């Protein structure tokens, strides 16, 4: 199969998943207790308003037809209305989404250098001192509650030392960087161990290959073999893990944004759950899933560019 064909096939495969995801968010909403019309129109809506909502969302139709109406609205970018803010959910998400995107990308950028450094250090001498220490730190990192760490960071680096702001997002790019440093750092602590463990395993795997022996026996230095052969070959398995990590980061952002009052998707979601603003919850859940899907798709496509064997 040619690369182009593979890409088309992969895109086509994403469609059923997309439909499935929309079914999940639809069911989520259909299972909500209470009268959906009251939810949509608000408690003080008059008869005209109720009739309008009923017709627009097809709420007296059978459930299957309701789903298709939901789908039709989705395609047109209509995610319903927020009861609390009295504006379309899509507008709310458009305002909060860039903040979370910034946070996630920022976290990834901060995460990569320590991950590469630690896993290379660990893989160079398996079971050596460095490897053992990194392993213990990894176990520790997995057990740390992110919101607790975020809280302590806020107290120590924010309130006590005054190095970083403890809430908000700022106006300019550099202000964003400054405001989101602690949130990104708190999330990072959690993700680094997972990535290090995987990259280390990939590196060790590659180091036992024949071509490493071949390189060494023709007189190349260890460093040379490592840099030009082992490392590039280990990147691919880690790249696949990346999509999973983005899902982790999005989930983590929900918690961290709450602690630091960052006006992102996570904060929007938590506030909306507490305020029973169900349509925002539904819309946010959908957007979170779509983001992960896009990243997975991008990683898949990138992998085929890096390693054409995948399409075969």
């Amino acid at each position, binding site marked *: 199969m040619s690369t182009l064909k593979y890409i088309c096939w992969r895109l086509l495969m994403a469609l059923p998943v997309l439909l499935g*995801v929309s079914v999940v968010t639809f069911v989520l909403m259909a299972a909500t207790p209470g009268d959906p019309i009251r939810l949509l129109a608000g408690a003080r809506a008059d008869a005209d308003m109720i009739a309008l909502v009923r017709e627009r969302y097809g709420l007296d139709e059978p459930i299957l037809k309701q789903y298709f109406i939901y789908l039709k609205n989705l395609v047109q970018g209509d995610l319903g209305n927020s009861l609390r803010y009295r504006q379309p959910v899509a507008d709310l998400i458009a305002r909060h989404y860039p903040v979370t995107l910034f946070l996630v990308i920022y976290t990834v950028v901060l995460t990569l250098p320590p991950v590469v450094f630690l896993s290379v250090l660990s893989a160079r001498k398996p079971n050596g001192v460095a490897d053992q220490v990194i392993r213990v730190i990894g176990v520790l990192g997995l057990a740390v509650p992110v919101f*607790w760490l975020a809280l302590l960071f806020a107290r120590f680096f924010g309130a006590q030392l005054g190095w970083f702001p403890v809430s908000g997002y700022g106006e300019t790019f550099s202000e964003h960087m400054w405001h989101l440093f602690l949130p990104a750092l708190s999330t990072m602590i959690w993700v680094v161990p997972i990535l290090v463990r995987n990259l280390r395993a990939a590196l060790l795997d590659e180091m036992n290959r024949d071509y490493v022996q071949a390189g060494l026996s023709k007189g190349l230095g260890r460093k040379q073999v490592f840099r030009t052969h082992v490392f590039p070959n280990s990147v691919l398995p880690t790249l696949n893990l990346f999509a999973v990590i983005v899902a982790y980061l999005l989930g983590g952002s929900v918690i961290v944004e709450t602690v630091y009052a960052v006006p992102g998707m996570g904060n929007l979601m938590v506030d909306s759950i507490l305020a029973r603003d169900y349509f925002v919850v539904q819309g946010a859940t959908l957007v979170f899933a779509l983001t992960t899907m896009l990243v997975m798709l991008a990683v898949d496509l990138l992998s085929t560019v890096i390693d054409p064997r995948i399409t075969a």
Partner: protein
Amino acid sequence: MFLCGLTLVVLWGIVALAAPLLATSDPIAINFEAILAPPSSEHWFGTDNVGRDIYSRVIYGTRLALYIGLLGVISPMVIGMTIGLLAGYFGGWVEMLAMRLLDITVPFPFFVLVLAIVAVLGPGIENYFIALAMVGWVGYARLARAEAIVLRSQEFVLAARTMGFSHGYILLRHVLPNALSPVVVYMMTDVTLVILFGAALGFLGMGVAPPTPEWGIMIAEGQIYVSTAWWISFFPGLAMILLGIGFALIGDGLARMLRIER
């Protein structure tokens, strides 16, 4: 490493069981004479904004944390293993169906979907367990499927088949036991995660109702006092780390003993 982890978890188990003996005061007793008291010989971990003893609350909180962690992984494991083993063993349309179900669950970030489900069902531990069962099976299903695919063409499985044993018998007696080890290793990490997410729910106000001593709620209660009375949030978090490390070490040790790549 494995023994360290096991010791730690057993110690926590003892703490949970012997909580009434170890606690120095009633975990929900309000005491307005000792509000926001720092750690002292009387209140080892200090007191919170209504004078409750943090040490006693942390001790009692162990019960809930272990309850959530140990019970919370059971249904995702059972569901995930069933789906994974059936998919891997039978292949064909069973596998196809299972994989599509997996495909549409995977894009949802774990915690986001758990939150959304809890939002619909309402706060509380039972609803957290339901959410976990609906979302957490994915990891187990993947592992079990991968094992079952290898096992179904192994000689002892084929031999059992030729001898006329039913699929159900083979799955239970031959495939399941041999597929178990990676699943158990994964489960140890999962226990840590389930405890952490459970506490996160409590922290966000969607877990058990206060004044139940629960670590996540305690951390949330200390949030506004964090710069003046750090001990309110600090000790429950520390307890959570020590418990999490126990399970993580067991998982790590098991993985090494069973030579499982993760």
